[in-house]
């Protein structure tokens, strides 16, 4: 496969995944702002921070829903906005039309100019519908790939891009919100808060999964951290995502007859995640763990680009 094709597919998968994650974050933020109490007021600020857009609104100013809709949904100049991500995913897809199935392309192309016509006021009015639409585009693309795409290199790069982006989003969320998960004694940001914990789960559509994994009932920070980092059944957990990346990288290695630095990085990360118990992560420091995992994820992205001769 052409290196350029592989690169475009990889980024297409990342951008569409990013658009979807951002849509989830906005839904989570909306959920939090309708809850009572002053503690949730700064929820929009943390949404900005998770998406790496913190600098767009000066520190100290409170962030409103209108700001979020404008910056994270509609703003074509903000490379992290949903609109930018979807445009870029489509641009990547269009550049490699022949590597996508017809259905995958239709998932990217259908109604692609929809967000252009919206201003902030109208977008806020239609927000639930628009965010669902974004999530549906991502699901449709994945579904079309699942049942229609040849299991060739292109598919591997698609899955690697998607899994890498998911791992990164989970880690970024933990990076921003780690303090709500710290044991009571060392809480940084106020009292222990049921809503804060569940907000983390909601941002990753993990609320129901949590109940199933832990037999319903009580929320504890270490169980939440366990689900999002170590659980091997939950598809947005760091462990699951690295498992997927590893599996697809192995397939590439088999097809190409050679392992690269990226393979070692993933293997190292996987064994670390396998041997850990979440108690250990808390002991060593959740924040340190998350920061380290984020830097490994970034390094991995660079190593993949190198291994397969991206641009």
């Amino acid at each position, binding site marked *: *496969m*052409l*290196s*350029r*094709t*592989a690169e475009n597919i990889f980024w297409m998968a990342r951008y569409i995944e990013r658009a979807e994650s951002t849509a989830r974050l906005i839904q989570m933020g909306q959920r939090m702002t309708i809850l009572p109490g002053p503690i949730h007021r700064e929820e929009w600020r943390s949404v900005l921070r998770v998406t790496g857009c913190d600098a767009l609104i000066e520190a100290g100013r409170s962030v409103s829903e209108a700001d979020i809709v404008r910056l994270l949904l509609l703003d074509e100049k903000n490379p992290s906005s949903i609109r930018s991500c979807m445009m870029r995913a489509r*641009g990547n897809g*269009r*550049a*490699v*039309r*022949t590597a996508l199935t*017809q259905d995958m*392309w*239709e998932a990217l*192309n*259908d109604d692609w100019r929809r967000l252009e016509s919206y201003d902030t006021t109208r977008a806020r009015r239609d927000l639930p519908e628009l965010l669902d639409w974004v999530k549906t585009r991502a699901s449709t693309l994945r579904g079309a790939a699942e049942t229609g795409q040849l299991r060739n*290199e292109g598919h591997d790069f698609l899955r690697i891009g998607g899994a890498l982006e998911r791992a990164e989003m989970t880690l970024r969320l933990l990076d921003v919100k780690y303090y709500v998960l710290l044991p009571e004694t060392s809480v940084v940001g106020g009292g222990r808060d049921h809503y804060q914990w569940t907000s983390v789960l909601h941002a990753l559509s993990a609320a129901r999964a949590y109940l199933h994994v832990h037999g319903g009932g009580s929320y504890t920070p270490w169980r939440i951290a366990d689900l999002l980092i170590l659980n091997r059944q939950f598809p947005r957990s760091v462990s699951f995502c690295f498992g997927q990346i590893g599996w697809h990288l192995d397939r*590439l290695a088999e097809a*190409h007859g050679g392992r690269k630095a990226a393979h070692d990085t993933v293997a190292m990360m996987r064994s670390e995640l396998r041997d850990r118990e979440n108690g250990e992560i808390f002991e060593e420091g959740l924040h340190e763990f998350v920061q380290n995992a984020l830097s490994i994820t970034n390094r991995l992205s660079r190593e993949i680009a190198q291994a*397969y*001769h991206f641009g």
Partner: protein
Amino acid sequence: MALFEMTDAFGVVRPCYAEVQRWVDEVGIEGLRGRLKEAETIFRRIGITFAVYGEGGDPERLIPFDLLPRIFAADEWRTLDRGIRQRARALNAFLYDVYHRGEIIRAGIVPADLIYRNRAFEPEMIGFDPPGRVYSHIVGIDIIRTAEGGFQVLEDNCRTPSGVSYMLENRETMQRMFPELFGSVRIAPVDSYPNDLLATLKEVAPAGACGDPTVVVLTPGAFNSAYYEHSFLADMMGVELVEPMDLYVDDDRVWMKTTRGPKRVDVIYRRIDDDYLDPLTFRPDSMLGVPGLFGAYRAGGVTLCSAPGAGIADDKAIYLFVPEMIRFYLSEQPILQNVPTWRCALPDECAYVLEHLHELVAKEVHGSGGYGMLIGPRATRAEIDAYADRIRANPTEFIAQPTLDLSTAPVLGAKEIVGRHVDFRPYCLVGKEMRLSPGGLTRVALTEGSLVVNSSQGGGVKDTWVLED
């Protein structure tokens, strides 16, 4: 009165259109207009669009599609088929000749100036033998029909004629939407075109290629107006769609950059102009292109389709001589005639053109896509005067033709079937063998009375049927 292809001289529906007429009566105009919306939705979703940049509006515009097929009876097609193949043979023979001994110039048939001083003539190609002696592997011939002249050739396209994806997609859409129609009429299939194209390209692989030749489609990229077609053809042939940056030349061979490292390329179906192929040979200021590509081609390391310099054969000034070429190289009489043409390069003819500009269609010799032309009867006095000044300043750059009364084909109007002017472009493939799909692209000027069918100027397309006996 323009020739309306659906009916005979007495207004009776011709046998080849009988089934379509029955279908229209059955579904009704209302019903058909509803189906047209469906078709447009399909096109938009699939992404069959045509990019027109720099004009504002939708950057990826749909080409309007008309539901009613344009139909050729079996005997009409037999004539066209022979005429098209004959023309494609003669054009390739001409290209070989002008880049070798130039017999046709020595024989005094084509003036030397017209070739050697032509911008489309490529001196780098002199003396070089492309594989199979084929220069133009895909010849698109634009054919019109008039009441007096029958089928006539309006122009030849020897470089990289576009539009064949519409031939295939229009048929696909019609079959998907109206299976009932296809059950009752025997229509010659066109779906082997991608296979035929791949076979053609493989036939002209360089002698040094080992095993099954690797073919690629070379596109300028996703912003090219015909990008959809490039990706469609690569897809349908199951070959890579590459951009210049995906290729490099090493030791007179061409390689593409893949995830496994370099892979050898044998045949390049390039959809890029000569000027942008290789900055070392053609345009040093170009950032596009693959440095060294032309050297690799001349060394026999790769085959370029079409050959650089093939454009000399479809130059509008050369067009005049194609009937002569057919007689000269093939010793045959031309089956398809040219449209009468005046050359402004000749003083007598130029004088005639200037005097009759209000009733002629004048064109730039090197123009394409319907740009830079003047349609006399539709132009204002001021436009005509301005154009006349341009001709006087540079007569060799212009030709003129009578305003042709193009035939019309049935089109779905608001309330009824109406006639609109059409032309036709078949695609003749030339490798070791010659292959011609029974069909092509019918372009239609959807505005009443308009003669401009170019998609960049609001023309539409329709499916083209060749009926089997």
